């Protein structure tokens, strides 16, 4: 169910064209690494942290921020 959420967002045309996300990448996309694209990693982390690990918003953000550093 949650993977489906990831796929659906990645299918957004504006997002996929800006970040060159292909159909193959979408089909392979999972919440767990490895990630083929920074945006996929970003989105997967948000979904996993919020909806699987049930973290609060602040924790979710701090985890995301760590991806950048």
């Amino acid at each position, binding site marked *: *169910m*949650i993977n*489906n*959420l990831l796929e*659906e*967002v990645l*299918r*957004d045309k*504006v*997002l996929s064209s*800006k*970040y060159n996300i292909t159909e193959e990448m979408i089909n392979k996309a999972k919440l767990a690494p490895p990630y083929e694209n*920074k*945006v996929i990693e*970003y*989105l997967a982390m*948000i*979904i996993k942290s*919020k*909806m699987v690990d049930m973290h609060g*918003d602040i924790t*979710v*953000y701090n985890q*995301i*921020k760590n*991806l*950048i*550093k």
Partner: protein
Amino acid sequence: MASIINQISFQNFFNYFGSLEDNTYEFSEGVNIVVADNGGGKSKFFNGFLWIFYDEILDSDTKTRKNIKNQAVKVCSDKAKNEAAVNDLIECNVVLEFSDNRFRYRICKGFRIRKSKSDSSLTESSDWQVFFKDLEISKRDLQLLEFHEVYDDEEHKRILNKLIQPNLREYSLFQGEEVDKLIDFNQADSLNRAVKSLTNINKYDELEKITKYVADRAEKDMNDRVASNDAASQNYREKLDEKETKRNSLESEIEKLESYEHSYTENKGEVDKLEGLNENAEARKEFDDKIKDQNGKLKALKEEYDRLVEKLNERFFDGGFGWIAMGCEKGVSSFKEKLNKYREVRTIKKVSILSDDSNNQINLLPPDSPDSVTLQTMVEREHCYVCNREAKEDTEPWKHIVSLLNRKELGQNKSVQMFKNDLNDFFGDIQLGAQSYVGRIGGIQQSILRTREKEQELLERITRIKDKVKNLKDERSYLIIGDEDDMADARQIMGQYKGALTRLQKAEDDIVKAKNRIASLNESIRKDENELGRMRPEDTPKEYELHLDIASDLRDAAQRTRIRVFDGMILKLEKEANQHFQNLIKYNELAGGILRFKKNPRGTIDFKYLDEEGNEVTGASEGFQRMKVLAVLMAVISVNPYGYLYPLLADAPLSAFGQGFIKGFFEETDKVFPQSIILIKDLYDRDSENKLNKLGGELLKDASVSTIYLNQIPKDLKQIEVYTEHKKIK
């Protein structure tokens, strides 16, 4: 994997007298049916589920759910209580086993009761001591044989939720008429609540919120970072402030939008609630207007009739009608005859009297004889105006004129009593008075006939209008709900409905305007963000920019995705619902309508039931109404890409709706629910050899039906000895 109930056992639970082993029902995936006649233990069976999930049972006397703690004595089998000796302990338990893809779980709820005196009443709580047991849950790996007790309360809760999630229990566990409330189409949010509970659409809402939060925080971090940099220009700071102001406006617009949406929901709810009542009130008013109109006509006709009847007497004496003279034709001719005779006799008598008395003879002047004034003039002027000749004084002609002038004094004009007329002008008066009647006599019969025709015509028109009023009242009576027939209330309902409709329209307009303003502000903020990106100092860390860029793009993508998925879901929902509906009703002779789903300005779903012409259908039969609810429920479950993961447990979901609906229901249920346990009496036939009716026989052979149990009560038992026997017939 879905949770599947493997078995349920009862021990001295209502009719289920005896040990758990004696009262065990084994089920598997697909459709499972328990057939029982009235009193055969269907509702008691369902009470087992209510106990497991809610610690409640349905009190069949009051039709309300009650906490089992206060009902223990009632719940325990009468036969067990009756057979118990003083101080005997009776076990009363319900044990349910279910499994997922890894474990098999056993849930046990129970209590013991002790008989405290020999003459204990079977229903009096004070005559029994009750000892409730703690919830017992154990589990075993599917590959192993032995169950292990689970002690942790949280784990207990998790296992119960695994069987059926609390927010889904209302859609998974229902009894009879409760089906109609699963999705109440008169409650604006009922369908949307079902959609949120049964699909993953709320996950998209959640994702939209968290990506927005992440993007906002990323932006704040970036702004803090840039603001702390001395190289940041004044223009940059001003732009940042400008953007912040727009963001505040955006927040304010979002708040307003929420308030408009709240108003929309409230008024939509009111409109939906009042729609039926308003239609009813309008229809009643329409009938009332027609009845009023007809009553007005009836009143006018009755008045006309009364006037006609009142004037019947007058017509006897009214010269215009003269009905009193009817049949007097002979009387008139006889009167005329007698009058003529009288006149004749009278004249003869008069002549005879005059002849007898010569002294009293009267010189009757011929016509045109001059009067005394003329005669005096003739004397004075010595001229006769009769013969136009001179009449000199003392001549014969002059003397003759003088003698005529003086005839009265000379006694020549002496009146005589010829005979005494005591009748005065009696006969003349009669003639005068009767004149108008006499003239009408010939037409009286015709006049009466015309009056009778008029009366008949009025009576017929009155009857026709009375019939019309009665028919209108009869038709109107079908619109009266219960004893409620107060038109003041109806007018109030119409007023309320109109008001709610106006407010709803306004809320819709406000929502559209607010959404436009929000879109415009968002667009403007995006432009500011781009501009700020260009204006950032060159030494701004690139990773911060990338962080913000990705976070903002994911926020926008999550928002667009939610809208896209929701719109797609509505289309799918409509398709699925109509498919399920047609399948559910396909064995019914009547064709059903079309289920229409539409996204409303608030961004939630509106539902309508339409005919082929697109008109809203009202007054569909209860069977169709229930199938509509089930079709929509099944559609909501079907649009979920992962299907439904819990069993359906239903007691008499379709009682009295006919075999066609039941057949369609079993076929469709199998497509949607991984497992269903249906308690039903409509397949029972006491006269048939296998106790199943024709449809029951068909289901017995149907491969999609996994198990069928037949519950029966042994014959000729006293009430306190009653217990349920069951046998697995499939």
